[in-house]
């Protein structure tokens, strides 16, 4: 049995408001690897992640980051998603500049625990470079059965953005 299997890749051939993974398989953990940018007309965008179609303010986040010569840490409660990636490139950056991130979703099939995520990513060389490490919490004990990724400010993911969902097996 493979330890890590690719479940599905979405490679956008046109701008898209969101990306959905609805067949998550029966793995122990999930990982999403993404290469992304958005059509936002101003600098910097976040990649939100929602579970099971829950668009309510049931998510919280914490993160630490470095940007230029500024380091920091921040967090939010009562959010409409966790961050799979934080502050990536937009239409104001070079057209071939895409951000990257890896996001882990652990024990996602468990139906008695809130879901905690862990992600790291960043983009160097854009107008405001960022590297970040962040946590997220979905305040719901349901097993995760679907995942939606969407830009945090209502723009679209740009054509060429790529999202691959992986499943990690246990022994």
């Amino acid at each position: 049995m493979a330890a890590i299997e690719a479940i599905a890749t979405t490679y956008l051939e046109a701008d898209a408001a969101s990306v959905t993974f609805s067949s998550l398989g029966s793995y122990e953990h999930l990982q999403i690897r993404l290469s992304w940018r958005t059509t936002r007309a101003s600098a910097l965008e976040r990649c939100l992640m929602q579970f099971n179609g829950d668009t309510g303010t049931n998510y919280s986040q914490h993160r630490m980051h470095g940007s230029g010569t500024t380091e920091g840490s921040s967090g939010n409660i009562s959010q409409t998603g966790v961050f799979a990636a934080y502050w990536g490139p937009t239409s104001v950056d070079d057209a071939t500049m895409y951000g990257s991130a890896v996001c882990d979703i652990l024990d996602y099939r468990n139906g008695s625990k809130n879901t905690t995520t862990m992600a790291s990513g960043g983009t160097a060389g854009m107008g405001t470079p960022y590297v970040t490490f962040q946590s997220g919490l979905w305040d719901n004990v349901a097993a995760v059965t679907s995942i939606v990724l969407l830009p945090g400010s209502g723009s679209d993911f740009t054509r060429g953005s790529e999202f691959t969902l992986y499943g990690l097996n246990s022994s």
Partner: protein
Amino acid sequence: MADPAYIVDGVLTDGEAWVALGTAAPDGSTNPITFTSTDDGQVGDFSQYMDLVLVLYCRDVVAATDHVNTGLRYNGDSGSNYFFQRFYGDGTTATATNSSGSVGYCMIFPANTATANAFGAAVVHIFDINSGKYKSCVSHYAADRDGAGYVGMDTMTWKNQAAITSVGVNAGNYFASGSRIDLFGVLPRMVA
């Protein structure tokens, strides 16, 4: 070394997403350590992978310092086309810094005056290597020197749209004997 069970005659036979592409055990006299695509449609051909992942456990022999920046060059490009953003801690202070240059710095490793036998660990994720995008990576590293050292994460962009066909890991001087570098390819799964 024999192919693992999921590779038969150079063809992947199951859904294993991470494929071991190569291992280097530096001898203290070679720099850079370079992994090159076989470009033959077989397992070592980078063109079939979405991402690459480097796993490193290294020490540098560069003199008169206890640590050294370490970086990558893609496709042998030695131009000033690499940009990085760093965020690290030294046990007391968290610091952010960014710069650009002819090497894509994304790691710190112990060097010659560091505690004997102290090697640093790092993992580097390189994304969408066959696309027409600038190539972006994210790295994490731990360069503990027993009472001092660094832990950090970087992101690095190579401002070039070419597909990556080789990855050179550039030491400050040479990687010390005992260092180890492994390269993995990460497969996508295109579904209708």
